[in-house]
């Protein structure tokens, strides 16, 4: 047997068995390298997500269940809600430090902060921009506080202790006018945004002008920064973020048309660009004569089916809340689909964002319902997402 193999090697033209071994080693090395490259390639996409996804899934596990939310809705008063939340480590540290809604926002901001820290490199630009929402929210709170002539302490209670401008809160609170706030924000992009919107504000004295300018700046940057086409994960995050922006635009236009506002009245408050809603489509929606023509126009957009399915319900109730709920449900379903489609990639991150935001929205509904005359729990449950 051995001799026949040696004969075979010699018949192939090898001068010695050692030459055959050398060739065998080389062939094995090449095959090995091909096998390694082919099998490892899919892992390269997955690997950056293993650590963040484990952390995110731990956070998903801490999100309040439907049963817990129902228990909260059935509490007697706001103190009971606070006591309940004190039993949850993530909320406990904020509940006694801030008013309830600010504590909830602080918890949400902390979640975004963690996401921005652990997100894989390709997602970092998007999460860095998402963190800016707390700066925008705080600037808007200071503007509202100044208009309502709240004192420094009351203004401070409105601010969420997160964001890039966290250390500048004192300077912002000390400002007495919009002009002074712009000076306090000097060196940040928001100073320029507010400065550009100042002439309109001086003309109409409506804070919404400044707030819309800030929102437009935030959403436009978010769309641009999230538009990386590096891989499927970044594309999915972009589609989720873009859809959120489109939904926000649709809600604003629906509400405006329900209130009978015309194009010129809506335009300053609508986000200039969308994701699936192109600039011309947003313009067409705003130019709709009334709510019915708006609904027809939406039906011919990417969100047509979302709205169309609920028109009979709207005709019965005559409340645009029907569409708000439908659009929120669409966003939740989209997040859920991404969660299922990319369990080893962006899925848990998008799923967590959506679940956490839903939890905070529900907790705010419950907290508001318990603040004044307490609503029956059945009514509160109807308002929950």
């Amino acid at each position: 047997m051995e001799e026949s193999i040696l004969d075979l090697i010699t018949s192939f033209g090898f001068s010695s068995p050692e030459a055959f071994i050398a060739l065998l080693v080389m062939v094995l090395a090449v095959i090995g390298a091909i096998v390694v490259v082919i099998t490892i390639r899919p892992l390269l996409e997955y690997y950056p997500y293993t650590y963040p996804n484990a952390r995110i899934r731990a956070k998903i596990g801490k999100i309040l269940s439907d049963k817990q939310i129902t228990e909260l809705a059935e509490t007697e008063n706001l103190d009971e809600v606070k006591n309940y939340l004190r039993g949850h480590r993530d909320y406990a540290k904020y509940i006694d430090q801030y008013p309830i809604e600010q504590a909830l926002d602080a918890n949400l901001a902390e979640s975004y902060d963690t996401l921005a820290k652990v997100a894989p490199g390709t997602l970092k630009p998007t999460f860095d921009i998402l963190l800016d929402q707390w700066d925008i929210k705080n600037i808007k709170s200071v503007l509202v506080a100044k208009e309502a002539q709240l004192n420094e302490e009351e203004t401070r209670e409105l601010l969420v202790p997160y964001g890039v401008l966290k250390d500048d809160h004192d300077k912002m609170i000390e400002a007495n006018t919009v002009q002074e706030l712009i000076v306090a924000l000097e060196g940040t992009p928001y100073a320029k945004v507010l400065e550009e919107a100042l002439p309109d504000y001086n003309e109409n004295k409506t804070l919404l002008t400044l707030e819309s300018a800030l929102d437009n700046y935030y959403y436009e940057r978010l769309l641009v920064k999230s538009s990386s086409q590096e891989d499927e994960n970044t594309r999915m995050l972009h589609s989720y973020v873009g859809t959120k922006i489109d939904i926000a635009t649709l809600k604003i236009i629906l509400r405006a048309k329900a209130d009978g506002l015309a194009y010129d009245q809506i335009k300053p408050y609508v986000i200039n660009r969308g994701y699936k809603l192109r600039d011309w489509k947003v313009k067409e929606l705003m130019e709709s004569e009334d709510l019915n023509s708006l609904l027809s126009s939406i039906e011919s957009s990417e969100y047509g089916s979302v709205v169309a399915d609920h028109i009979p319900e709207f005709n019965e109730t005559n409340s645009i809340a029907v569409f708000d709920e439908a659009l929120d449900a669409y966003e939740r379903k989209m997040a859920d689909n991404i969660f299922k489609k990319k369990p080893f990639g962006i899925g848990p991150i998008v799923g967590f964002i959506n679940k956490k935001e839903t939890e905070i929205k529900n907790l705010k509904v419950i907290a508001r319902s318990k603040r004044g005359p307490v609503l029956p729990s059945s009514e509160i449950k109807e308002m929950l997402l």
Partner: protein
Amino acid sequence: MALVLGSALAAIGAGVAVGFAALGSGIGQGIASSAGVGAVAEDSGMFAQGLVFTAIPETQAIYGFLIAILLLVFSGIMGGSPLGVTSGLVAIGAGAAVGFGGLGSGMGQGIASSASVGAVVEDPDMFAQGLVFTAIPETQAIYGFLIAILLLVFGGILGA
């Protein structure tokens, strides 16, 4: 002492066995351990479970290591009678069986382990189910290991 051709081929087999199996095991364990660290960072109570899931993809490297040791001992490299060319080629087959089997199995098990760590940290009741799912990709490594053993026994290497 100069190596004969058969023993040299067995040495290649030993290298393939432990090299590729350890590669798969290492990648799998790296994936599992990074998920474990993430889980422990959020919940320190996850240390034990994280460690269990991280340890599971170690087995492929052990199989490869065992086959490599057997090859070294019975091929004459560490003393004893040297192998013939035929047995040397069988040794390469045995090494490839356990090596490539371990490579795929280790990586697959690492992915399953990290998913299980995520599931358990989200819901501690998932530990048993996670363990079952994580154990399943072990089978490919076992096939490779069994075939390698059979090749060693019936290829005239073990007991030669």
